[in-house]
């Protein structure tokens, strides 16, 4: 049995397998390998599972190929709404945040909530206010929003609006 181990994921696949070109596959694979290597290095050198998880996720949050942090999908109004959670098996301490839009690394805000210890799950404006009492890096929308996600939202909205005009209606 291994002394340490790590597994990572980059989501459920916003790009369908049949649409994956060799160049795209190489880019995704390289990003996953970089993140995996970062987490493995933490564990190989005796670091904690918490630090390994954070090493992986902060890298992927900065990578526009994946749906978290920079390059995350957009809301109906074209905005940002990030969610994240962190949990430790040793003591089952946990922290989670939802609906934040200015935190460069949402997973680190989840960690801050966990470390604060009084609450487990903060959301929206309250989570942003909590973040203001931490040294966590903030970012403008321009950092998070990418052209490919804007195009995806435009396609989605056009499709949804056409459905709403037909027999389907939003309730």
């Amino acid at each position, binding site marked *: *049995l*291994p002394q*340490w*181990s*790590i*597994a*990572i*994921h*980059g*989501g*459920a*696949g*916003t790009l*369908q*397998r049949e649409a994956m070109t060799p160049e795209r*596959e190489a880019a*995704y*694979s390289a990003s*996953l390998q970089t*993140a*995996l290597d970062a*987490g*493995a290095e933490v*564990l190989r050198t*005796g670091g*904690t*599972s*918490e630090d*390994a*998880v*954070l090493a*992986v*996720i902060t890298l*992927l*949050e900065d990578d526009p190929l*994946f*749906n*978290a*942090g920079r*390059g995350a*999908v*957009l*809301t109906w109004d074209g905005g940002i*709404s*990030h*969610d*994240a*959670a*962190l*949990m*430790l*098996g*040793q003591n*089952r301490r*946990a922290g989670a945040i939802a609906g934040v839009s200015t935190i460069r690394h*949402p997973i680190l805000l*989840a960690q801050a909530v966990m470390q604060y210890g009084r609450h*487990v*799950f903060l*959301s929206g404006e309250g989570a942003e206010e909590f973040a203001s009492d931490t040294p966590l890096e903030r970012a403008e929308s321009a950092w998070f929003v990418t052209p490919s996600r804007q195009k995806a939202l435009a396609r989605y909205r056009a499709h949804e609006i056409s459905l709403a005009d037909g027999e389907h209606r939003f309730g």
Partner: protein
Amino acid sequence: TVGAVARDIHGNLAAGTSTGGMTGKRWDRIGDSPIIGAGTYADNNSCAVSATGSGEYFIRAVVAKSICDLMELAGMGPLEAGDNLMAEVAELGGSGGVIVVSKRGETAFSFNTSGMYRGRADSTGLNEVAIF
């Protein structure tokens, strides 16, 4: 969504998940990723889990905690427990997948849709990334 689960040399587990949600979401919709027990869970007595997929179904099936329960209470391995919960998600109408690391350091992927980005490594030399 992105996520990671890990076991360190002290036997401690951790799980993390981060996401932008789903394209065009409205009404401050929140999926399973930040919900402890649905999209993210860790317990040294069983396993650590991070999920990705159609979050509403992962919430209804309480996927992450249920995988840990199957491992701790029914003695299942991480793949068998993960497959059980992903079958339940599929039965409800959802799709996606999970990554699991057991308290013994075994890793497993379970998913029921294509285009899944995955990677894993351990101290025995395992090192792989793949797009399933």
